[in-house]
């Protein structure tokens, strides 16, 4: 299953809630303001990094670049473009939006 998260974890509980419901082996894509969750050294980073032992985390590069945080992304988070976003939705049978 692919979970997609478009909210900043500093502002809303969406990512927190998503991580608590994501089964082992599932994928999480951060996009729009959700990419702020990918910043290393933030108060949220440790929580995401610990989740990354069971799930794979992606971030949408166009949104990362728009927000000026391209050089701050946590190691191990995979950057994808819109084509990669589509491939993730094709590779996973269900897409769950955390709005």
């Amino acid at each position, binding site marked *: 299953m692919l979970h997609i998260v478009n909210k900043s974890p500093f502002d809303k509980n969406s990512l927190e809630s998503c991580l608590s419901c994501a089964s082992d082996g599932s994928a999480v894509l951060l*996009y729009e303001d959700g990419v702020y969750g990918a910043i290393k050294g933030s108060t949220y980073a440790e929580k995401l990094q610990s989740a990354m032992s069971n799930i794979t985390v992606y971030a949408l590069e166009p949104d990362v670049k728009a927000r000026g945080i391209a050089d701050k992304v946590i190691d191990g988070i995979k950057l994808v473009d819109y084509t990669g976003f589509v491939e993730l*939705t094709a590779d996973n049978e269900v*897409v769950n939006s955390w709005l």
Partner: protein
Amino acid sequence: MKYTIQINEGPYTHQASDSAYNFTKAVLEKGYEVFRVFFYHDGVNNATRLTTPPQDDRNVVNRWSELAAAHDLDLVVCVAAAQRRGIADAEESQRNGKDADNLAPGFRISGLGQLIEGGIISDRLVVFGD
């Protein structure tokens, strides 16, 4: 691979319509099929032809109309959500006793069943919203 894409927010205020547009384009470029794009909640506000954004900004509405024309997309606006928010085609406008309509080219107004049908017939339903 067949997609239905749901858009829950209007143009400019939230990035949802932009993200959905870029996603839809990428789906088409991959050679996958877009069965339907369904506009719900404030998403219906993407379908007004009265929009006039600043010259140096993207035109969110026209982009959808043009993509629909180029790829024969089915852009469906939920009628109940549209009535609450003042989006109407000529027929809806007349039926509700209004003196004007504002639906942009390439969009059509229909019921929520079109969303459910999209969920049943498509391989993937992807929701963009707030």
